[in-house]
C-alpha cells in the first residue's frame, strides 16, 4: 500500500470549498421558528414553496404511530420508517413522507378520520356528495337535477363506479348555491338517478356553479385531525394535487393541474430528477417547475407502480367531471395526475399525509 501526498494547494482548496459550502448553508434564510425537527433553513425555493431537507422518522413520527393517532386501521401499513420531507408551503412548515405510509386505503377512510382538508369544517365535499355545473335546481317540482352525476350509483361499471347520494328520508345539505334559499338542510322525498325531490324548504330555480354541491348530512365529518409530536401539534391533511378544488376543467389537457395552488407540483416535482431537464412523463400536468437539485427518483418516492404498492397518492381535490372521484398523483411517474373513486381501495392507492404547522413564516 502506498500513500500519495498531494500538494499543499490541494488541501487548501478543499478546505476553502468546505468553508464555502458551510457559509452558503448558513446564509440561507431561516424560515422555521417553531422548533420542529430538521433544518430551520431553506435549502431551495422560497417561503411560498421551499425545501428544508429530510428528517428521519425516529426524530419525527413513524407511519404506524401516525395511524394509531388518527385511529386508522384500514389499508396495509408500509414504509413506516421512511424519512420525512420537510418543506414550506404558503408560509407553513409541512412534513410529508418520502414514500406512502399505507396502501389499499380509501379517500373516504381518511376523510372519516378528519385528515383530508385541515379546514375545520366538512371540507369541499364529503363522501357520496355531488358538486358542479351539471347540477341544477328546478323550482317547479322542488328538485335538484343532473344529467351525468348518477345520483343512484351502485358502484358498477354501468354507473361509472358512482356511489349513491342517499335514499328517501335522508337529510341532504345544499351549499354553494347563489340563491340563499337553496342553501341549507332538506329532506329527500324521492330520488332517481337524475332527480332528487326535496321537502323542508322551497327551492328557487338555479343552474349550478363550480362549487354548488349537495351531500348527505351524516356523511360530513369535521376536518380537524391533529397529531402531537413532542411539544408541537400538527394538522393532518392530504396534498393539494390540482390547482383548483374541485378541479377546473379536468377534461382539458392539463386536467386542471396548472396553477399556483397545486402543492404537489410546487413541492414534489422540484425535488424530482426530471425537474432538471423538465422531461416530465406528463408535461401538460407538470407545467414548468422549479428544480431544487435533489434529484429524487420515482423509485425513491414510489410514484411509479412498478416500484411498489401505494404509488398513487390520494389528494384533497374533487374531480369536477365525475364528482365521486378524487385527484391522485403518481402511479405512472410523479407528474401523472388522475382521479379515482373516493370509495376505492386498490393496492395502487396510497396514503401520503401532510403534517402542517400553523403559519410559521411571514410571506
Amino acid at each position, binding site marked *: 500500500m502506498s500513500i500519495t501526498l498531494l500538494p499543499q494547494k490541494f488541501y487548501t482548496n478543499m478546505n476553502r470549498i468546505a468553508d464555502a459550502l458551510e457559509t452558503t448553508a448558513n446564509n440561507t434564510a431561516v424560515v422555521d421558528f417553531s422548533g420542529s425537527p430538521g433544518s430551520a433553513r431553506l435549502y431551495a425555493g422560497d417561503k411560498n414553496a421551499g425545501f428544508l431537507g429530510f428528517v428521519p422518522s425516529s426524530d419525527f413520527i413513524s407511519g*404506524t404511530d401516525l*395511524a*394509531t393517532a388518527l*385511529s386508522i*386501521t384500514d389499508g*396495509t*401499513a*408500509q414504509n*413506516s*420508517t421512511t424519512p420525512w420531507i420537510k418543506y414550506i408551503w404558503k408560509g407553513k412548515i409541512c412534513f410529508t413522507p418520502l414514500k406512502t405510509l399505507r396502501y389499499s386505503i380509501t379517500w373516504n377512510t381518511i376523510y372519516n378520520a378528519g385528515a383530508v382538508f385541515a379546514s375545520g369544517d366538512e371540507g369541499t365535499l364529503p363522501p357520496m356528495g355531488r358538486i358542479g355545473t351539471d347540477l341544477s335546481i328546478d323550482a317547479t317540482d322542488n328538485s335538484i337535477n343532473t344529467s351525468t352525476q348518477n345520483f343512484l350509483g351502485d358502484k358498477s361499471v354501468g354507473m361509472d363506479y358512482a356511489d349513491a347520494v342517499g335514499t328517501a328520508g335522508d337529510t341532504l345539505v345544499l351549499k354553494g348555491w347563489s340563491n340563499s334559499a337553496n342553501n341549507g338542510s332538506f329532506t329527500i322525498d324521492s330520488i332517481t338517478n337524475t332527480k332528487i325531490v326535496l321537502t323542508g324548504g322551497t327551492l328557487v330555480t338555479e343552474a349550478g356553479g363550480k362549487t354548488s354541491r349537495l351531500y348527505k348530512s351524516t356523511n360530513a365529518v369535521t376536518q380537524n385531525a391533529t397529531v402531537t409530536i413532542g411539544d408541537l401539534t400538527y394538522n393532518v391533511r392530504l396534498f393539494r394535487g390540482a390547482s383548483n378544488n374541485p378541479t377546473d376543467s379536468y377534461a382539458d389537457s392539463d386536467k386542471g393541474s396548472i396553477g399556483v395552488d397545486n402543492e404537489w407540483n410546487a413541492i414534489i416535482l422540484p425535488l424530482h430528477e426530471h425537474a432538471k431537464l423538465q422531461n416530465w412523463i406528463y408535461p401538460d400536468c407538470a407545467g414548468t417547475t422549479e428544480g431544487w437539485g435533489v434529484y429524487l427518483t420515482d423509485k425513491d418516492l414510489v410514484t411509479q*407502480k*412498478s*416500484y*411498489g*404498492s401505494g404509488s398513487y397518492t390520494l389528494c384533497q381535490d374533487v374531480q369536477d367531471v365525475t364528482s365521486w372521484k378524487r385527484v391522485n398523483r403518481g402511479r405512472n411517474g410523479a407528474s401523472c395526475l388522475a382521479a379515482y373513486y373516493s370509495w376505492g381501495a386498490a*393496492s*395502487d392507492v396510497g396514503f401520503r399525509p401532510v403534517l402542517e404547522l400553523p403559519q410559521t413564516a411571514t410571506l
Partner: protein
Amino acid sequence: MLYKQNNELKLATSKVVYTKNGEQFEQIVGEEGQQWWLDFAEKWEHTSVIGFTDMVYTDEQLARFEEIKDLDVADGIANNYVMDGVIGEGLGMLALQKKNAELESLLADLTEAVLLGGM
C-alpha cells in the same frame, strides 16, 4: 399474502380479527406487527382485537415465494403470483425460465429415448 418491509418481500404469518364500532373485520398483520394491534385497541375504545390466526400456505405457494422473493417486482404482481400462480408484468423472464426448464427436461427425455433406441 405478501407485504414489504424495508424493501424486502415477506409472507404474512398471521391475520388479525377485530371489531371497530361493532363491525367485525379481518386483516393480515404486516410490518406493524401484532403488538401494534393490541396497543391500538388499548388506545381506542371503538376497537377490540378478537384474536390472531396463523396464515397457512400450500407447498406450491411457499415454493413460488422462494422463486420471487428477491425479484424487483411490484407487490401486487408478486402477491398474485405467490398466492395464485398468476404471472403478471415483470415476471415474464420467470415464465421463460420455467418454460426453458420444461423444454430442457423434455429434450433430455427425448435424447435418452433416441440413444436407447426407444427402450
